[in-house]
């Protein structure tokens, strides 16, 4: 079984700061990490490899420094890593990104047929959750999003059974491979790499492909030209005009504070009081 896991190197969004005056992103001290959602996808793929055998190839599109993300994936146990990097990719939106990745997967497929493609459910920098579906459509693969568990894989009959989170519950789905699976967070816990894999990751020669090597002939299908959407404005959220009314009382007695708070809230929001009173039954 051959699983391709698409990952992305992202800035740790929890550490991002916005310049108070210019509203620009201040990148100093913001670490680049593997998109945390993708780690669930990688671990799920590695678990399948442990169970059914085969290979795991990690794939990313990004600047040369994204190599670090792939190296990390190797340390966890991925077998191969491909970095697709080219100036032509700059400014790609989700449609253009899915085009580039789909094309690269096609190239990987030529070396060794791909049975499954895994991705995280979304990235923490873009939060779009569109690249996975986009790849599936371009490669004409079955799409299984928000998968919380891979129940079984039937290698002989090219079948896979998964649990998929949907709005009101969990769907148990059966489909044929090749298919693309976006993995839900919390599905598993990333393993602690072995020393052997740490050495392997440090020495691994990552395959670096430019646009042509990734099999993308049409330069207008990627980068800015291949992106139907453009960012027309970036701005900071407007602060709310009114600040909180701070409840105070003599001695700051917690009991009195609580009672005062309820009195004030209910006086101003009688509807809320009714809503809460409904719960008295």
């Amino acid at each position, binding site marked *: 079984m051959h699983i391709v896991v698409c990952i992305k190197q992202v800035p740790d969004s929890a550490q991002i700061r916005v310049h108070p005056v210019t509203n620009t992103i201040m990148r100093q001290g913001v670490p680049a990490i593997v998109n945390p959602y993708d780690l669930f996808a990688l671990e799920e793929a590695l678990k399948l490899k442990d169970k059914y055998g085969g290979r795991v190839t990690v794939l990313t599109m990004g600047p040369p420094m994204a190599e670090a993300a792939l190296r990390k994936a190797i340390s966890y146990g991925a077998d191969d890593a491909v970095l697709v990097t080219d100036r032509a990719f700059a400014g790609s939106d989700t449609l253009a990104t899915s085009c580039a990745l789909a094309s690269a997967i096609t190239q990987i497929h030529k070396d060794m047929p791909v049975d499954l493609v895994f991705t995280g459910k979304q990235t923490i920098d873009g939060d779009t959750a569109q690249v996975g*579906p986009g790849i599936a459509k371009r490669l004409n693969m079955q799409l299984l*999003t928000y998968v919380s568990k891979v129940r079984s894989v039937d290698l002989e009959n090219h079948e896979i059974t998964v649990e998929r989170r949907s*709005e009101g519950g969990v769907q148990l789905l059966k489909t044929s491979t090749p298919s693309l699976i976006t993995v839900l967070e919390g599905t598993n816990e990333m393993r602690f790499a072995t020393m052997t894999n740490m050495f392997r990751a440090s020495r691994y020669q990552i395959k670096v492909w430019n646009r042509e090597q990734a099999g993308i002939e049409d330069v207008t299908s990627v980068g800015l030209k291949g992106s139907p959407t453009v960012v027309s404005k970036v701005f900071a959220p407007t602060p709310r005009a009114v600040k909180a009314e701070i409840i105070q009382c003599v001695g700051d007695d917690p009991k009195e504070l*609580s009672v005062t708070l*309820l009195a004030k809230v209910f006086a101003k929001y009688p509807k809320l009081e009714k809503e809460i009173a409904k719960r008295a039954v």
Partner: protein
Amino acid sequence: MSEAPEVKKPMGKKRIELDDRLKAYKGVWVFVEHERGKIHPVSLELLGEGRKLADSLGVELAGVVMGLPGEVTRSFCHEAFFHGADLCYLMEDALLTDYRNEPFTKGLTDLVNKYQPEILLLGATTLGRDLAGSVATTLKTGLTADCTELNVDLDARSLLATRPTFGGSLLCTIQTLNYRPQMATVRPRVMPMPDADTARTGRIIEDTLGMFEKDIITKVLEFIPDAMQDKPQLPFADIIISGGRGMKKPENFKLIWDLAKVLGAEVGATRPVCQAGWVDLERQVGQSGKTVRPKLYIAAGISGAIQHRVGMDASDVIIAINSDPNAPIFDFAHYGIVGNAMTILPMLTEAFRAHLATARKAG
């Protein structure tokens, strides 16, 4: 992230600017999502928002209803009319009983190609995101995900879709310049729910899927509804009590559960708390978690970082308890108590309990 270039962007060999074929795309569509016999509230919120967009563009608002043949599916069209739709595209087929990507993508793509809307909106739910991504790629058009605000640029008849980025610290407005339809998914609980006008009615345009079960590779073996699994339903809760790092220890979350029990409320939490495993990931409120819009949101020991704020600041009433008087949460909460959440929460629980007891006697 690229800044907006003012140039019209050529695509492939054919289109240089919004060509005549694309100019024919007219109207605003809302995909009406339903599962287990109920419309997803986000679809109604979107109809309310879509109505405004359609009015400013001077076009009609249409709902798209896909489902198994029968009265229930048909009733969703009427509900769409009540909430602002002028017409509905109805596709009934037994293959559309459960959501599956393949038939829904084909059905919606066919409808778009045939009736050519200029804007297509879906809820940013698991279903909506799955379907929107597939349809947009199939149509090779632009899609803006997880929006929190929609507007139109009337000159270009262009949808201005605004969404949080970089963990919510910034917002960006995204346009689809030379492709139609312009697609967006919108977060549940961000747009206000429009009032239903049961006197409203509209046209139903029926169409067919034209697929057979044997064409569809993915099969639904079983559906395990959440009610059986006791999953928290944060986005639709009317009252939410949330805790952050200021709760200091996982054991202290009991104080939050106590208050939630008294009020029949859901329990929420910030990302660090969820990541530390103090509470279930499903309960995370904020940029990478759930967006909530309860009638009452009580935030205990939450500093109010932007990542959390974007998920809850549309709540009707926000009460914050934090020991730091300078915590950003006090900048957008309605009421605040500066103090130790561990001592105030039990007293607040007591106060609510007493209030409910009085209400019980009176009622």
